[in-house]
């Protein structure tokens, strides 16, 4: 049985893959900020901001295959090339080198003396902000190109031993366990070289004091002001940590050197699609462009409203549909049957927003909270479910065991409920699973009419403010929910009716 459920779940994987592709295509439709706003290439601040915007959506990466994945080494090399050539990008590269910081030093300083003197001085000057962040060297040394170059050469002779991953790892470990200002100071000496370990440690530790130190260090070396304060509440702490995680997810290629097998996997992993899919799977859906909140947190807040409403509506419509369907089947071809058929057709054809608007208008006096929206939503699936219940009930009533039960003298009600309904309920239950996504879709409209702040309401606001990240996330969530419902529905069908199980497996095999 479990194997069957598992098998059905595995069948959904290609679908999920397809879903991810469709939503990914949707993200590529969104306008590229680089095309949106002009700005001259000389405006370095503007270019940096633009780069940041594009990187947040992985637009700097190729779509599916990355033939030349970048890491800190290639980043530093590219900067050196530009600085030696002294071209348009040189100014930008100075800033980039300072941003890459300590992580880039092991790939830069050993080769410093092979670079011609003029660019060497320029590079050494560009690195000055790093020295200030580390708190080493004095201003006089860093003031002129030649002395700065000398300073960095000396720095590397003294300190290269600190720039090894195991050493930093040990330091960060100690900082988390027994934080002290001295240890923090020591980690500042390696600057961004420690960033990978810092972010990793943030993820693993729950200790407030350690988080304060870790985020302070990370903020110091990256010059982004996102820190945990000692008196922050738990929610804020979580937000800061997840902020760092998603920042690292976007920027790790600036600070980490690819080695060995990682280089090969990077050609797949360092692509727009892979980064986006993996991010989405781990709840990193980016930041909402309208208010800068993490989309995932917003989704966690809004989705339960919509999903809960849809679920209640499903329950309500099932509660009406089952008795009504049984009644129509029992009195098949008679007045009751025809009347319900007509009524259901009317319900089926009523636009959801019309029902919702009518209920909202007439129900405004008595503010009944969730009741009216749920009623409005329930009309969406009522017809289909009743019809299904009626059809399966008619089929059940025609079975031989009903005749037998009747012949043996069972009462009408007993025959209907115990013998027929038990079997006739199965298709309706599974239909409910399929109806759920339809209700979620309809809930978008109902929420807007009743002003309920759920997913749909938020989506319409997002469309107004062109909040791309939210729209993509909602589309993805809806598709995943639908697929999950489908799998559940099929598994439930198989559980309740073994014949279906066989059939499903057989059918899959032939196709």
């Amino acid at each position, binding site marked *: 049985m479990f194997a069957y459920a598992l098998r*059905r779940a595995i*069948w*959904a994987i*290609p*679908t999920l893959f*397809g*879903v991810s592709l469709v939503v990914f295509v*949707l*993200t590529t*439709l*969104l*306008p590229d900020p680089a095309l949106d706003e002009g700005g001259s290439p000389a405006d370095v601040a503007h270019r940096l901001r633009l780069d940041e915007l594009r990187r947040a959506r992985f637009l700097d990466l190729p779509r599916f295959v990355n033939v030349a994945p970048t890491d800190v080494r290639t980043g530093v090399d590219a900067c050196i090339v530009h600085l030696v050539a002294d071209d348009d990008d040189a100014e930008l590269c100075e800033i980039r080198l300072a941003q890459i910081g300590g992580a880039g030093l092991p790939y830069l300083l050993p080769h410093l003396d092979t670079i011609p003197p003029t660019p060497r001085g320029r590079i050494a000057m560009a690195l000055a902000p790093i020295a200030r962040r580390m708190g080493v060297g004095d201003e006089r040394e860093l003031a002129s190109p030649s002395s700065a170059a000398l300073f960095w050469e000396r720095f590397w002779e003294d300190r290269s031993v600190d720039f090894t991953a195991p050493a930093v790892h040990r330091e960060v470990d100690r900082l988390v366990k027994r934080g002290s200002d001295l240890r923090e100071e020591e980690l500042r000496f390696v600057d961004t070289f420690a960033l990978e370990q810092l972010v990793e440690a943030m993820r693993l530790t729950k200790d407030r004091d350690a988080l304060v130190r870790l985020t302070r260090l990370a903020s110091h070396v990256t010059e982004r002001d996102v820190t945990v304060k000692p008196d922050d509440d738990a929610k804020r702490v979580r937000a800061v940590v997840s902020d760092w995680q998603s920042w690292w997810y976007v920027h790790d290629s600036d600070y980490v050197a690819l080695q060995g097998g990682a280089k090969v996997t990077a050609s797949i992993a360092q692509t727009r699609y892979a980064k986006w899919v993996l991010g989405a799977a781990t709840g990193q859906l980016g930041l909402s462009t309208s208010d800068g909140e993490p989309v995932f947190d917003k989704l966690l807040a809004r989705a339960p409203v919509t999903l809960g409403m849809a679920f209640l509506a499903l329950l309500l419509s099932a509660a009406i549909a089952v008795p009504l369907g049984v009644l129509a089947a029992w009195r*098949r*071809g008679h007045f009751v049957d025809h009347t319900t*058929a007509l009524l259901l*057709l*009317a319900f*089926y*054809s009523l*636009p*959801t*927003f*019309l029902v919702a*608007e*009518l209920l909202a*208008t007439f129900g405004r006096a008595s503010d009944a909270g969730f009741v009216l929206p749920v009623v409005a939503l329930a009309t969406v699936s009522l017809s*289909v479910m009743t*019809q299904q219940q009626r*059809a*399966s009930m008619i*089929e059940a009533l*025609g*079975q031989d065991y009903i005749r037998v039960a009747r012949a043996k003298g069972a009462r009408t009600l007993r025959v209907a409920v115990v013998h027929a309904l038990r079997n006739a309920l199965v*298709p309706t239950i599974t*239909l409910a699973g*399929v*109806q759920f996504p*339809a209700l*979620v*879709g*309809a809930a*978008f*409209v109902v929420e*807007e009419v009743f002003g309920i702040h759920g997913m749909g309401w938020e*989506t319409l606001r997002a*469309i107004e403010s062109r909040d*791309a990240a939210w*729209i*993509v996330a909602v*589309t993805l969530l*809806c*598709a995943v929910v*639908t697929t999950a419902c*489908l799998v559940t529905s*099929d598994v439930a069908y198989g559980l309740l*009716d073994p*014949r*279906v199980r066989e059939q499903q497996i057989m059918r*899959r095999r032939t*196709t």
Partner: protein
Amino acid sequence: MSDVPGDPNRESIPLLLARTTSRIALAPKEARASLRVPSTRAESAGPIGYLRSRLGAAGTLVAAALVLFAIFADMLANDLPIACKLHGQLWLFPNITQPAELVALGGDATSSEAEWKVSALVPHGPTSPTAAPLLAPGRVTGHPFGTDREGRDVFARVIHGTRTYLVFALAAVMVSLLFGGLLGSLAGLFGGGADALVGRAIETVSAFPPLVLVLGIQAAVPHATVATLFLAIALTRWPEVARLVRAEVMQVATRDYVMAARALGASPLRVLRRHIAPNVRGQLIVLGAIGVPAVILIEASLDFLRVGPPAGAASWGETMSEFRDAPMAWWLLAFPGVFLFATIVALNLVGEARREMMDPRTR
């Protein structure tokens, strides 16, 4: 009927007024044959003609009326008269041809300055602001359905909205039928890799709630227009068609006469056109008839939510959405609502009647 496991559109199978057995294949064929389905009135009446089904006839009638409204919208509501003599010049059907001179002159001036004229039923166009905003409907005001918040005549907007919606929905359904039919028959005919690919594509697209996918596409596309909406809606509709055509093609392809045609050297295309298409055509018509109201519903919902592209002439959803800002103006909700409801009911009835005609099992 549905060979794709985990068929998410299963809910569309047991449609309204469907007569008997569950169409979700519950038992193997042999078992179903042994079911003793008691005879019903409908069955004993023998094959009923489609037009003799009263509801189907009523639906067809309403649908025909709506089509006539759409065709003759300019006769029913337009600023410019149907014919007039103005400054010694005779104008015929300026309401349709929209000559530049008269448009520049304006509808009111044309009417008042004309020596004689034959006006449209309601002498107001759908887009031109005429009288005071939010005028209640009535004979006195000359606006049978009242006016909206911008003073546009609601009757004109409703009538012209019929055209907007019907044309749009028909076109979107056509495209989805074409696309779905093509892919479905490809999958059914060739099987193997093509089939697997189309099957996964069907599953993928049906994993999105249609409204959500359309909203997502409309929001993601840099400049959402009617064309993108059109494509987005067609995209959400084709899987249903493809699924049906694929199943049907697969089933028909095993018949003896198809085998014989193949053995005689007919190309797959010829087999598809001559032997399979006639079997599928009826089903396609049913899907089309059911698809049109579904598309209209989505479009109206988008207009109501004010996220659709700017509608061409007029749209019911847009007028109805104005009700939310003017809750006392019931006519903004009522008249387009009735038209929308009538359209959907009528087209569903037509689809149902066609389905019953096609499929003796459901009788």
